[in-house]
């Protein structure tokens, strides 16, 4: 998502005005004493194509913070969010990030959605000694290339997501010979395919890759790609695209009957399903970058989850999609880490350093399955995938034949590098009895 930048003057002027007014509020507080308020800086897309993730996530943050504040806040301290638009692009985002940290004295940041932005922010957060929680970005490289003290991730990374997708595909449709990929031409599209391909070839070496297509990010038309795929007739078509790109690709492929000849695998389509409605056919393998789903087989009747989904729907007129769950997970983790750190600090309010320590090794539970944060800061988040199926009561296909894949089975172990590790994945993985299948 790096490189998407739009000038959004209205929100920028608003942010500056808000910043100036906050400058005069209390920003420093005495060590150990409870602060008057806990400011949390949150970067999210409110402009550009990735707003499809950023806007629902922002609504989720507001909903969670409102509820938490109503219940007394984090250990009695009310939360004040400071939102920054990631759509400004890398350089401007960094300026805003520094401004919020250095001028407003924010010590706790949730950043970012874009992998490009996570790569830019992580070393800066380490330098500034602020706790940065990567709450939605997918790149696995950031935590593998360097060990951070102040940077953690409360969700899975691209390796967990892609290896899990390969596992689901091979467990449900083992007999295919050819595969083609149509991914967006930017870091995520390229990197996710690299991981997917290497994992697939490790588990099923006889698969032939017949086409690797990388249309421009934000391409309005995939007609030619679809013609070429119809000529090649691959057994499986993978696309890790999202947002408008994915919507357009699915619609055009549907209009031209491509779904009838190939098995589609769309690991991010959970976030497009409600928009696509009946344009998304049945029998497509979809996922939502983690184990979050409003019809999660283990949590759909869980009181807390159900109440959240209903409230979110009443507020936004949409079912929550995966970034919503990622946002809640990050906020919950931060909240739990405060509890853990205060306990370790004999009841005193923790320093940022103590809080960052508490984040490592933390076990927390957002709205769905619990997540463990490893010593390298990487979260272990289980993966849920399924196949689309129309069901009464929903105007869009929902997942059936769902499968929950434990994160530790499909995540690069601490200290290893993903490009090498995925090549060593063994076919026994597919038979692991901890993979839970829901019929």
């Amino acid at each position, binding site marked *: 998502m790096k490189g998407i930048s739009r000038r959004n003057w209205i929100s920028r002027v608003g942010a500056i005005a808000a910043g100036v007014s906050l400058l005069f509020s209390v920003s420093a507080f005495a060590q150990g004493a409870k602060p008057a308020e806990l400011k949390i800086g949150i970067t999210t897309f409110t402009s550009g194509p990735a707003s*499809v993730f950023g806007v629902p996530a922002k609504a989720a943050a507001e909903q969670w913070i409102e509820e938490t504040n109503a219940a007394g806040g984090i250990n009695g301290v009310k939360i004040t969010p400071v939102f920054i638009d990631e759509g400004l692009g890398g350089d401007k985002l960094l300026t805003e990030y520094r401004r919020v940290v250095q001028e407003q004295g924010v010590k706790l940041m949730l950043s970012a959605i874009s992998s490009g932005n996570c790569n830019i922010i992580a070393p800066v957060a380490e330098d500034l000694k602020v706790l940065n929680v990567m709450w939605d970005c997918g790149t696995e490289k950031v935590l593998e290339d360097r060990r951070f003290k102040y940077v953690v991730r409360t969700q899975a990374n691209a390796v967990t997501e892609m290896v899990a997708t390969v596992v689901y595909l091979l467990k449900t449709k083992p007999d295919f010979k050819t595969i083609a990929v149509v991914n967006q*031409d930017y870091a995520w599209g390229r990197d996710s395919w690299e991981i997917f391909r290497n994992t697939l070839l490790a588990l099923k070496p006889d698969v032939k890759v017949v086409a690797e297509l990388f249309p421009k990010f934000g391409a309005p038309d995939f*007609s*030619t790609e679809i013609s070429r795929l119809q000529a090649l007739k691959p057994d499986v078509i993978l696309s890790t695209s999202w947002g408008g790109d994915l*919507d357009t690709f699915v619609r055009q492929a549907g*209009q031209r009957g491509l779904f009838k000849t190939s098995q589609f695998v769309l690991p991010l389509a959970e976030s497009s399903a409600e928009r696509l409605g009946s344009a998304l056919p049945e029998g497509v393998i979809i996922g939502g970058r983690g184990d979050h789903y409003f019809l999660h087989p283990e949590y759909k009747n869980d009181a807390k989850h159900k109440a959240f989904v209903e409230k979110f729907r009443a507020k936004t007129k949409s079912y929550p999609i995966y970034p919503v769950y990622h946002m809640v997970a990050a906020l919950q983790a931060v909240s739990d880490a405060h509890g853990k750190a205060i306990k370790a600090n004999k009841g005193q309010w923790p320093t940022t350093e103590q809080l960052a320590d508490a984040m490592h090794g933390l076990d927390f539970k957002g709205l769905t399955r619990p997540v463990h944060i490893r010593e390298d800061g990487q979260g272990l988040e289980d993966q849920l995938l399924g196949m689309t199926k129309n069901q009464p009561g929903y105007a869009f296909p929902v997942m059936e034949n769902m499968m929950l894949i434990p994160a530790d089975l499909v995540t690069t172990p601490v200290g290893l590098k993903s490009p090498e590790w995925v090549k060593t994945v063994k076919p026994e993985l597919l038979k692991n009895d901890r993979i839970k299948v829901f019929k």
Partner: protein
Amino acid sequence: MTLDLLILAAADGFSYAGLLFLVSLGLTLIFGVQGILNVAHGSLYAFGGYTAATLAIWATEKQAPTWVLLAALVAAALLVGVVLGGILEIGLLRRVQDKDPVLQLLVTFAAFLIFEDLQRLIWGVSPYSSTEVVSRMGNLDLFGITYTVYQLLLIPAVALAVYLGLLYALRRTRLGKQIVAVTHNREVATALGINAKKIGLITFIAGAFLGALGGAMAAPTTSLVPGVGTDMIVLSFSVVATAGLGQITGAFITALLIGMARSLAVYTAPELEVAVPYLIMVAVLLVRPNGLFTVAQARRI
């Protein structure tokens, strides 16, 4: 390279070229008459698309017949062309007519940014779409490949009709001849009794309509998202620059060239797809810096 491949590439290329041509034509027409490179043309494309999708969604809910859905696309383009085009011309461009070209460019860029935010205000940030008309028009098989009638036949047909219609209008009608006269030399045309202001407004609205029509025709096949106008304006600039500013036939041929080259690239060298329009532009401008079809201009003293 086989004949099959060429035909397949042409089938995809024509549809893409059709949309590109409609938008570029609007841009080049406005430049021809006003001498202004209108960056806000991208917003007209986006507004055309969003308005068309809104009307089409509404018509689909009312179970309107297919021809009504098609008429809705044109109606949306007309609405956007007249309203937004009129506001832009009278409220903005007319006032910077004699100013520095850089200032003109900045003014239209500012308008573009304002329209982008307006568009987010009205339609939000979620992808927006209405594909009903494409499904209703059905499919067509060509060498074992399924195409939609809408993309394979309708879009190229509309583009061709607009091209021929415009050529006819410019050469054979009184209004068209006046437009050509103003394009050629504004002062002389005014001296001959042509109301250059009026011609300017009419051309601008026509150009705006074409930009909006491009968006409206694209709407049933694509997802409208924030920033959809940006991509189109960049691409149509490259068409207009390659063809030569103000060249109608040039824009037609260049759009075809780029459409074909792009789909051939997807078949043979997919990595090059994104770069193709710009490679063509660079190659042409190196040899002919004023564009492929620019004719020698009479020197003005």
